[in-house]
């Protein structure tokens, strides 16, 4: 157990802390012994700064948030001292407040935004009630307060009347999250603690909210503590960044310092393991090992088990905070902070052009015609109406609306887009798990739904299709039957498709595959239940299960987004390796352009951009990343945070005119993107663009009039003046 403090008190540039945290420790008594989920943390929060805290899951960062409001959940015990210094008046010792004072302190002085906006509202009460009851509980004037609420909601680009009159379930995830931000500011607090406020949202929404946070911070004079697992996201926003590992801070400094001169090996490895658009894919490396258990934190430096620089000193002596550089505002808890940049270089491969790698990538074989061919696929779901809707037309969600795509052998296609855009539905259609309401899905030339119903011409059975098309899900925890052991789950495909194998043959095959993906000793893993595996291990089992079918095409539905950042690259590498060994194709679905780029670039695949049920652009990653033609692709590109090593700052103004995705039951006429497009003109509202060649590069198509130099678009008046 580490005993040293992580102390960062000597910041000469700013001397007006709004909150001072000293030796904050949170303990839990557990069966296996006492665990410290926050380990002697001391820090100053400067007035009007945005302070970013970065850490992986289980690093103690949420506990820090709870500690600031003295809201640690029982049976956790918080020690240390937390002092709040209001603009005027006496400093407040937060941990000494009585119940009533604490009730006033929370929300009036320090408010908090949780990541679980979905469940932060009372499901049976309207939104306005939440605002009103907060105001009355704190004896604020309700009329004045509600005026402020309306202002806040419209500052967050929402319609106040509609939002206030809704029940929580009637709002989309992004709207709920923004409403929660408005609710947190209703009592005009000085400090806002945001705990993963955007984790459940799409990149575009995340990025939009992040830019709103900056505006709001200025307007309402706030100090913000922003907690996240996403280093690139906070890098755009924060003035200072602190990195947490194993329940304590291991490095802290101004954002630019951390990005350019990270000195703790963990920070450096974390930076390298984060997929992004700028650095070459060869530079991205996973961090070996896993984060420690709170009961069993390693002695000395808690990172020494995973650290390439570790020696005996690291095992024995817990490193103090060493000042890095001359500024005095950058500190790292590492004995060898001076050696870290050399041992873990960030830039050595920067000279190599990332593009070079692509030539060597295997790429698809197009000679035999497409493996799976989708033509004008439409999937429409009907929504149930109410009693009074009996006579009106039923609402139809056009999840997929006329997408065509060919997937070849050894091909990789990555679909990106916001949630609800239909990319998963389209993916499931491609692997025969969702029947299209129109259009055709062909496997090696055979319409699979015809085959299922009529048996086709007898040259192929539906069973063969079923075997050839597989799926790997986003959440590995629910992709495995919780009641079945790993071995039993993995036996299913073998029993179904290799009846000639007996129990021992099946088992030996499973054992060898498990060991192959690094789950050793496999005999031990076979008898485990899914809940006894880590997320990464669960995903491996799910992957093996699909591979045991020896499929031709695997739909991988966000396969890494449920995993910790540092494990993502490793999982993607494993999937790519298995693709080569098993000769399969992938249809990836991702909401994250950096992950999409990593996979597509490494395999020589394509990226397809989906918006409201339509494929708006498709092409090689080089084109999609560096030469996007469709304005929506450009917006996604903007929304993907970059680790800008040259210094912080957002990449320009938001390129979308509307933050929220239009209602898919009633998509906009003409080009569906025209309601958000910064380039939209009159003609876009009436005419629907067809996909056409977008650049000189191969396989690059986009559905936008702007790719056609002679289109009437260029004469049409703009509609973006509002």
């Amino acid at each position: 157990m580490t005993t040293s403090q992580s102390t960062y008190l000597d910041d000469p540039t700013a001397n007006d802390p709004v909150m001072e945290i000293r030796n904050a420790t949170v303990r839990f008594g557990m069966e296996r012994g006492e665990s410290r989920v926050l380990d002697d943390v001391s820090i100053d929060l400067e007035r009007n700064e945005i302070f970013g805290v970065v850490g992986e899951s289980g690093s103690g960062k949420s506990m820090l948030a709870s500690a600031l409001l003295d809201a640690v959940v029982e049976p956790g015990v918080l020690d240390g001292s937390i002092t709040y210094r209001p603009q005027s008046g006496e400093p407040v010792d937060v941990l000494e407040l009585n119940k009533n004072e604490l009730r006033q302190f929370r929300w009036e002085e320090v408010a908090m935004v949780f990541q679980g906006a979905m469940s932060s509202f009372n499901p049976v009460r309207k939104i306005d009630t939440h605002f009103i009851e907060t105001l009355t509980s704190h004896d604020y004037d309700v009329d004045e307060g509600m005026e402020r609420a309306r202002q806040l909601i419209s500052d967050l680009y929402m319609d106040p009347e509609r939002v206030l009159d809704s029940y929580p379930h009637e709002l989309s995830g992004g709207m709920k999250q923004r409403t929660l931000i408005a609710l947190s500011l209703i009592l005009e607090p000085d400090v806002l603690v945001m705990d993963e406020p955007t984790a459940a949202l799409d990149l575009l929404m995340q990025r939009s909210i992040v830019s709103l946070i900056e505006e709001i911070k200025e307007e309402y004079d706030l100090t913000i503590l922003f907690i996240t697992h996403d280093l690139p996201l906070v890098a755009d926003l924060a003035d200072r960044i602190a990195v947490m590992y194993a329940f304590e801070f291991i490095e802290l400094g101004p954002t630019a310092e951390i990005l350019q001169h990270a000195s703790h090996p963990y920070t450096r490895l974390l930076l390298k393991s984060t997929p992004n658009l700028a650095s070459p894919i060869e530079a991205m490396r996973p961090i070996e090992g896993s984060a420690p258990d709170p009961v069993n934190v390693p002695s000395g430096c808690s990172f020494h088990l995973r650290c390439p620089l570790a020696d005996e000193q690291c095992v024995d002596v817990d490193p103090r905070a060493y000042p890095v550089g001359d500024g005095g505002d950058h500190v790292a808890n590492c004995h060898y902070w001076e050696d870290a940049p050399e041992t873990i270089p960030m830039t050595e491969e920067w000279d190599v052009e990332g593009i070079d790698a692509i030539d060597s990538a295997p790429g698809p074989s197009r000679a035999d015609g497409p493996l799976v061919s989708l033509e004008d696929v439409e999937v429409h779901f009907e929504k149930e109406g109410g009693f009074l809707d009996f006579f009106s037309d039923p609402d139809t969600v056009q999840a997929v609306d006329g997408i065509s795509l060919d997937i070849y052998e050894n091909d990789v296609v990555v679909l990106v887009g916001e949630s609800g855009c239909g990319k998963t539905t389209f993916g499931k259609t491609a692997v025969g798990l969702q029947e299209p309401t129109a259009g055709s899905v062909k496997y090696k030339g055979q319409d699979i739904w015809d085959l299922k119903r009529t048996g086709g011409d007898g040259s192929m059975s539906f069973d063969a299709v079923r075997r050839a098309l597989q799926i790997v899900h986003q959440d590995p925890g629910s992709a495995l039957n919780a009641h079945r052991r790993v071995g039993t789950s993995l036996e299913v495909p073998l029993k179904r498709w290799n009846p000639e194998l007996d129990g021992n043959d099946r088992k030996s095959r499973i054992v060898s595959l498990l060991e192959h993906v690094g789950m050793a000793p496999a005999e031990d893993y076979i008898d485990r239940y899914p809940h006894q595996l880590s997320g990464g291990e669960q995903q491996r089992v799910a992957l093996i299960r699909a591979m045991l079918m020896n499929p031709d095409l695997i739909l991988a539905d966000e396969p890494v987004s449920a995993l910790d950042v540092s494990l993502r690259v490793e999982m993607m590498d494993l999937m790519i390796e298995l693709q080569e060994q098993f000769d399969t194709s992938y249809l990836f679905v991702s909401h994250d352009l950096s992950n999409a780029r990593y996979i597509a670039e490494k395999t020589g695949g394509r990226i397809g951009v989906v918006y409201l049920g339509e494929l708006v652009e498709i092409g090689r990653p080089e084109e999609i990343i560096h030469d996007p033609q469709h304005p929506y692709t450009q917006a996604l590109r903007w929304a993907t945070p970059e680790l800008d090593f040259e210094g912080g700052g957002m990449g320009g103004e938001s390129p979308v005119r509307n933050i929220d995705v239009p209602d898919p039951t009633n998509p906009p006429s003409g080009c569906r993107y025209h309601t958000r497009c910064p380039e939209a003109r009159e003609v876009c509202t009436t005419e629907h663009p067809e996909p056409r060649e977008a650049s000189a590069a191969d396989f690059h198509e986009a559905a936008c009039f702007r790719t056609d130099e002679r289109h009437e678009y260029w004469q049409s008046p703009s509609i973006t003046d509002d």
Partner: protein
Amino acid sequence: MTSDRDRTDPGRAEKSHESAVSTIPDGGTVNTPFDVVSEYEETRRDRLKKLYDTYVYAPISIIKRDWRARIGFAIVLLYVFTATVGVYLIEPTHVTEGPGLAKPFETWEYPLGTDDMGRDLLSSTVHSTSEILKMILSGGLFTVTLGTTVGALAGYKGGVVDTVLSSITDVFINLPGLPTVMVLALMLPITGNPYLIGVLLTITAWGGLARAIRSQVLTLRQEPFVEAARSMGVPSYEIVFKDIVPHLMPFVVINLTNAARRVIFSAAGLYFLGVLPFRNHNWGVTLNLAYSGGAHYKTGALHWFLMPMIAITGISIGLILLGQSLDRVFNPRVRARHEKKLAESQLDEVEPEDDDSETMIGAA
């Protein structure tokens, strides 16, 4: 499984793929895993031992740890013992075995007293147990089997199957229990066969279970693991009974004990009214005799009521306790903790306190 067994080395297969740079620590590369056939062997003994672990050892050790389960099990076992062995220990009673309405706890001949015809109440209570248990068994199994099957099929298959099954289910949900049984008893030729009566008593009871199971299956069938099974071409019935039903087991078990309770309540109630045919005396019949014999206003006749009442209440307490605790047996987390092999190696993670999971990201 023994730890000293030779472990298969997948790397034994020839390594012909040089291109792949393995990022996997400790795995090695194989040509294709379909080539690998190792001499991995599991003996019959190993397998039996594993089965014993799963189906006998783990459930028993779970039950041993929970006081509710222990008491519930003890009570139910006592009734089963009474019905099987008790009938040989205590002679059947007959009219004028003792004096009418003898008080309890006065003589060993009829320790719990007698009714107004001089029948030994202990003996008549003991000898009615087996009939009641038969009714419970048939009624409970009937409810659970029909309810689970209909609910799971309706929920999983959907479409026309669902519409038909749900409509039938809804009719049965709306039928009031006791009146329906009375009408059927009035209209149909029903004998005193306890198994038949058990089914008759639960003829309306399965509907509620079927509806609840259906709505749970509607949720479960959207789960990724079910979708994965579908994509592997696993037949529907196998998905329903191997993937979905195990998730419903805790719920089914609680309903099994509830159905059993309902059988006792309605059986005793209807026998009390005297509307069901019977072959031997049972608790309900005794209540009926006591009521029509005026035991509620006669002095010194209270014990006539109490014996059957205690018998009815006792077994339903046992069933409630059992139902509340048995669901743990089906919980994989609890199971894993109690299986011998894994008990030593503390594999179970303690729930992380710092719950910043990222599983919500970007659900498409």
